């Protein structure tokens, strides 16, 4: 079994264990208002970090490229209250346009 198989299976097993453990935490752990508040804040933190990292980096290198244009267009679309598919589509089209023609 080579490292690619170990990585495939190991990642999958741990990924499911993490997901399932989240669903199996006793409900009373959640009754505390601070826990609920933290639970609401964590997705904001992680999703914002994901937006940033996926827009401005390639592995461990920071870079500004066509994705920044896509991100700006997405922000503009959201500020104009565009529906979700339009936000994503406009980001993809503007990014592809910059990449292909600039």
């Amino acid at each position, binding site marked *: 079994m080579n490292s690619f*198989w170990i990585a495939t299976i190991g990642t999958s097993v741990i990924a499911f264990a993490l997901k399932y453990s989240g669903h199996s935490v006793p409900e009373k752990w959640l009754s505390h208002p601070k826990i609920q508040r933290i639970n609401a804040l964590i997705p904001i933190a992680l999703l914002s970090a994901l937006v940033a990292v996926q827009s401005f980096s390639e592995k461990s290198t920071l870079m500004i490229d066509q994705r920044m244009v896509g991100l700006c267009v997405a922000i503009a679309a959201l500020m104009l209250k565009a529906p979700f598919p339009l936000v994503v589509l406009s980001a993809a089209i503007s990014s592809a346009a910059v990449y292909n023609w600039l």
Partner: protein
Amino acid sequence: MSVSLTVGAYGVAFGAASVANGFSVLQSCLLSLLTFSGASQFAVIGVLGAGGSAISGIATASLLGVRNALYGVIMAPRLKVHGVKRVLAAQVTIDESTGVALGQEVRGTDEMKKGFWYTGIGVFVFWNLFTLAGALGAQAMGDIRAFGLDSAVPAAFLGLVWPRLTGRFERLLAVGCAFFAIAMTPILPAGLPIIATAFIAIAVGLKK
């Protein structure tokens, strides 16, 4: 449904990238079926593709997968499922399903559940179909950037976080975490800058 289509389509990019990084078509499809968490999957193929060990690949992917456990904690009291249904719910507990469910919070628990299941299953189906397509067509497709796919996913994440930025405090946290993650990217191993922001959320949540 739109979330499902959008993010499912990004599966093409994963399938293609996975094969380009040395994983077989079968391994790529197994990652999408079993791991089913985009960021974790990209992390593991990225680490191994760059010559990293299986252990470091698994560790990076798993750090990214911790947030799915946190999503499970959010969703479990709303879904109230047991047995096989809990196994299924756990498997489709990802950014998109949880994000859509939380977006329906004002409309009540039933709408949240509906959002969670439709999005989770929809993304699962599209993600896996398109992973297979991407893996098979890896050579033919060439450059995903030419299709704007590299911008579609951050835009999707942005669309998911946007409705949650209800006040000044939330917006400040979002911007702060974004800058923190970027600043840490050249320093910390891939994946850690993102997971570290969860601890920022915990710290400010405890303080406030």
